[in-house]
């Protein structure tokens, strides 16, 4: 605190509170909408305060869906999203750890070549190669599978770079001491490197889980079979099916379901989440 100006502090708080409210407002409205019945949800003006239908709507969203849709709820989509997100997060972390270890700790031919190959993936988000990647996945028979949903997304460079950064900061003496103690490369990796990277791995897991859960374009392309849809796709399904007479209460409940796991992860693991974001953007 540089000067003691209570007025400025007060204004700051007010601005911040207004900011928080502005950001939170849409969520509030959504939550409210998810707690009313369909009838109330077509009466203007729509409600600003919650009703009592939360659990009924929840049940309907999970199991029954809405008129004009398939009559299936979105419960299974939650499962698909979960599997996909976990596969992406775990897969990415695993292969990135191995690659970063190899590139930082070994001198071998084509080392820099591999490094640049991995670097290139930073410049190729899935959106710029959708059709050819789709073709490859289709040719490999991976459409409509969990593998098809996750594998093409797990090789990108951000995780590898972050681990590389982490490994570079680990003191050289630890490897020397381990060598003198008789540890080979994989033993060093397992006993020393991995435990020391624990927080980074956790932080990255948080970020990647959210990234995986929220994937939209790629699952859209790769799944034609309704059973494989993810929850974020489910939102779009409902919006589409409801062109004429939207059942906003169910749509908003579905949206809440789609938002809940990632938001919960961010809120309960905030420290790790922030660390993950700031570490991967270096």
């Amino acid at each position: 605190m540089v000067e003691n100006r209570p007025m400025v502090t007060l204004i700051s708080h007010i601005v911040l509170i207004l900011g928080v409210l502005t950001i939170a407002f849409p969520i509030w409205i959504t939550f409210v909408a998810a707690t009313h019945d369909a009838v109330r949800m077509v009466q203007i003006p729509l409600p600003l305060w919650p009703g009592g239908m939360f659990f009924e709507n929840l049940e309907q969203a999970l199991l029954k869906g809405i008129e004009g849709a398939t009559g299936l709820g979105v419960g299974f989509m939650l499962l698909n999203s979960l599997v996909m997100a976990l596969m992406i997060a775990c897969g990415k972390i695993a292969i990135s750890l191995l690659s970063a270890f190899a590139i930082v700790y070994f001198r071998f031919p084509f080392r820099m070549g591999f490094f640049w190959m991995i670097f290139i993936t930073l410049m190729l988000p899935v959106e710029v190669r959708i059709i050819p990647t789709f073709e490859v996945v289709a040719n490999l028979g991976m459409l409509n599978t969990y593998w098809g949903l996750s594998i093409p997304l797990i090789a990108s460079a951000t995780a590898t770079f972050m681990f590389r950064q982490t490994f570079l900061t680990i003191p050289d003496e630890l490897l020397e001491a381990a060598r003198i103690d008789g540890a080979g490369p994989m033993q060093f990796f397992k006993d020393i490197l991995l435990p020391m990277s624990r927080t980074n791995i956790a932080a990255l897991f948080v970020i990647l889980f959210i990234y995986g859960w929220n994937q939209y374009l790629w699952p859209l392309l790769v799944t034609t079979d309704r059973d494989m849809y993810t929850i974020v796709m489910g939102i779009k399904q409902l919006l589409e099916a409801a062109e004429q007479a939207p059942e906003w209460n169910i749509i908003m409940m579905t949206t809440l379901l789609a938002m809940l796991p990632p938001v919960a992860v961010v809120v309960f693991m905030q420290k790790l989440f922030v660390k993950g974001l700031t570490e991967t953007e270096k």
Partner: protein
Amino acid sequence: MAQVRLDQIQKTYPNGFKAIHGVDVEIAEGEFIVLVGPSGCGKSTLLRMIAGLETVTEGTMSIGDRVVNDLEPADRDIAMVFQNYALYPHMNVFDNMAYGLKIRGLAKAEIETRVKKAAEILELTDEQLTRKPRQLSGGQRQRVAMGRAIVREPSVFLFDEPLSNLDAKLRVQMRVEIKRLQERLGITSVYVTHDQVEAMTLGHRLIVLNAGVVEQLGTPIELYERPASVFVAGFIGSPSMNFAAAKTADDGRTVQLGGAEFALPDGIFTDTADRDVILGIRPEDLTLAAGNDSATTMTASLVEHLGADTLVHGYFGTDRSDMTIRLGGFHHIADGDALALQVVPEKIHLFDPETEKRLG
């Protein structure tokens, strides 16, 4: 326990830089050898070559009866204490010390015995064994690092500037502990430091390195009393030896510096008549003369009072080299005072101005 032999050891890096120019040393069993020198002189490189962390470009490295040039560190039966301790931060003290033994497949009971024994020697409590490194003080971490080396019961101990990261008081304390430890265990030790006080107090013999070349190898007192070169003379002793360009008299019995004259000792120096020399005198070897008729008078230019000593900076006659003398106790001396000094002739050092090597 084994002896260590370095035969014409050289090290050249891939970029062409020659770090070690040919070192020959035979370290006896149970000896405590200190590698000392300024930063960049190659002492750490040499140590790491003994350890196997750096490759030997030329020459033979032997530990015991084996030539170890191509052996991995783990196979050389050595243990190392690092400057930054290199403790595994996620393991507790016990596991840190046990790690090397675990990899070598020792039985759990044996591991526990060794760790407990080492902990006892190092005065680490059972409670400390369960702590992680970050919960320990610098001195405690240092002991754990040594413990890790002790439990291995190796042929050779290697120390890489282990006390550099400790504060001055702790350094003195740990120095004594290391010396006691080595005497108790009797394991051949090679110790690297840039601190000449550590070197002098710890080593049975010292190796002074300068830019990859061995300047002198000998006991601490040998290095102090008969330094082989200007470099060694200036490196050992603090404040360091005074050097000045001087000239010996025609009869070779005295050396002259700006009008002051110093008597040379008999039978020590050869070929000292009428030539340019580098004169070396240690600050502590110049004392106040009894009377006022000494041929060596120094004009004081700056006085420093340390309490136990007084340091006087000044010059002799017309010579303008800055000389320092150390007088015991407190002396009331002001700038500009003329001090009559005397020095025992045996304490005079002469060096060749070109080779900087000792004359005689």
